[in-house]
């Protein structure tokens, strides 16, 4: 079997204790996460704030240094790379951020922003760059004339298209999409999601799609992994996880998602409390203080549940079973 495009094993990212006297314990933002992404595939990472999903993405790209674990991408050991080969690798893995305005230099024209990566990596002779930039802008649904404008003259949707063009400019095989449509209006959100699906088809791109909106995830992802307090609690094929969620947290996420349909009863299952402080995760199963599973017992308080296969999914819950799945109805 060929190696997956991206393979992450036991990745950890801990932030050191805060404060002069370091009385706070370290924050274990990512704490032993393993997954893989195949060529041309979309894996969605779903989680709420504090789940560690953005730290995870930044660590994979080495925008931050990992505390432990292994990341293999296109056969290379990413975490062990020296600066020069790391730069070369960055051509192949790119990121698109949630807030396109924060990611674009306000004093750089759209054309210069898209050309920047091509210039840094010396991918083309200077004379050929404008034509390539025009082509990229058209590929993301903008006009070549937009090369001359500044980011502030663009709408949010157009800025996100520029962010995508910029990432594509260096010819990646893999994109991390960090909440790419969360800041956009619904009518524009659909445009950008459709663009991402088209680009995946035409360019064979693999995506790590970070999101909190399960309906968006359903639209784009082949597989989904649900994160809670720095750990994966459930993963599997998207439709399977949404229709037969096995972990109580996944079930709560699905039940909490507001559905634009007045015939769907609201709030069938509201999760109590808030996610605990990641510097002081609960003992045993990290979800146990909020868990409403009828079989919750002493073992949940003492023993951290390992991920185990359950049907086509993988679940970290002592009491998850093939029955009793309250998913999308």
């Amino acid at each position, binding site marked *: 079997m060929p190696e997956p495009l991206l393979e992450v094993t036991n990745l950890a990212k801990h932030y050191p204790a805060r404060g002069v006297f370091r009385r706070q314990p370290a924050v274990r933002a990512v704490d032993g996460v393993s997954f893989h992404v195949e060529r041309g595939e979309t894996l969605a990472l779903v989680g709420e704030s504090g789940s560690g999903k953005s730290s995870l993405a930044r660590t994979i790209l080495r925008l931050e240094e990992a505390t432990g674990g292994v990341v293999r991408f296109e056969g290379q050991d990413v975490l062990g790379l020296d600066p020069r080969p790391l730069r070369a690798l960055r051509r192949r893995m790119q990121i698109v951020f949630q807030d396109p305005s924060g990611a674009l230099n306000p004093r750089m024209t759209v054309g210069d922003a898209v050309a920047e990566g091509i210039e840094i990596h010396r991918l083309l002779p200077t004379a050929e760059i404008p034509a390539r930039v025009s082509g990229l802008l058209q590929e993301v649904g903008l006009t070549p004339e937009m090369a001359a404008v500044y980011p502030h003259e663009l709408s949010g949707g157009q800025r996100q298209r520029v962010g995508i063009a910029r990432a594509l400019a260096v010819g990646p095989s893999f994109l991390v999409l960090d909440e790419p449509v969360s800041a956009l209006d619904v*009518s524009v959100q659909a445009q950008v999601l459709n663009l991402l699906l088209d680009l995946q088809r035409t360019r064979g791109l693999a995506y790590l799609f970070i999101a909190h909106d399960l309906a968006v995830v359903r639209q784009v992802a082949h597989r989904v992994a649900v994160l809670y307090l720095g750990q994966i609690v459930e993963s599997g094929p998207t439709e399977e996880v949404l229709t037969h969620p096995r972990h109580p947290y996944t079930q709560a996420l699905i039940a909490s998602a*507001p559905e*634009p349909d007045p015939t769907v009863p609201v709030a069938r299952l509201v999760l109590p409390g808030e996610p605990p402080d990641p510097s002081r995760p609960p003992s045993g199963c990290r979800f146990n203080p909020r868990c409403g599973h009828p079989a919750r017992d002493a073992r949940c308080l003492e023993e951290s549940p390992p991920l185990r296969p359950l049907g086509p999914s993988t679940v970290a819950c002592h009491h998850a079973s093939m029955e009793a799945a309250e998913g999308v109805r």
Partner: protein
Amino acid sequence: MTPLLEVRDLRVTFPGTGNEVSPVDGVTFSIDAGETLALVGESGSGKTLTSLALVRLVPLPGRIAAGSSIRFGGTDLLALGPGALRQVRGRRIGMVFQDPMTSLNPVLTVGDQISETIRAHFPVSRAEARGRSEALLLEVGLGDTAGRYDTYPHQLSGGMRQRVMLAIALAAEPELLVADEPTSALDVTIQAQILALLDQLKSSRRMSVLLISHNLGVVAGRSDRVAVMYAGRIVEEAPTDRLFAAPAHPYTQGLLASLPRLRGPRRPLKAIPGMVPRPEAWPPGCRFHPRCAQVMPQCTSEPPIVAPGEGRWSRCWLGAEGA
């Protein structure tokens, strides 16, 4: 029966580089006692400015144009002097906004902020106000910890701060609660908690609610009627179940078709082309026509209001006589 709130031809104008612009441009709606109206729209539709105009909090240099009318419980709010206005704003009309951190005072405890509101509106002693505040904290689900009264806003999570905002809004026992994107900054499980709380308070206190949101999912299960705003105007209003089952205006149809859904068969999203225009660039006639899939020649002139009954109407040439 007279509605609790009646807004007619509301126009909010700002001085522009050339002509004045009107980000809210002729908005008409009403809310009955005990009723929840949802005002839905994308950014730039004018929904937040509409809610601010209700309590005369339009930011300068904007102003409410002559010819606008806002009547609340029979009183003309636009004619009130400052003292009388204070008897309505924050008292009979309560407000919660998206970001509680900017509305809470960082150097006062949450309990003191609730007490302050109570004492601003009712002639009660400090001790009495404290007692009522503690009861309100309990009512909004913050009564589980002793000493919650004495916590500061920064010690609370986003969801808890929104609960405090609700307690402050309820402190004056309002007849109408204006909730502008009350859960948009919150995680989905916390959003579900706050929405459940809002539903519960609405029925226990029999308040009217104006729920403003960009999220059709948030309004679907908890409003009696929905008004959809686009480019400064309401383009369609209907009972909630009718609006979702059979949207009349092409913009509403487009919004619903562009929404990803968790339930039902998975289908490709139908995006609305283009983007929401800015007030200075609003097209003539129907403001949605350049993006509309069903555009007709007459759409460049002012669309008629079509009211097929069932308490619904839309502003569109489709379905108009002779169209």
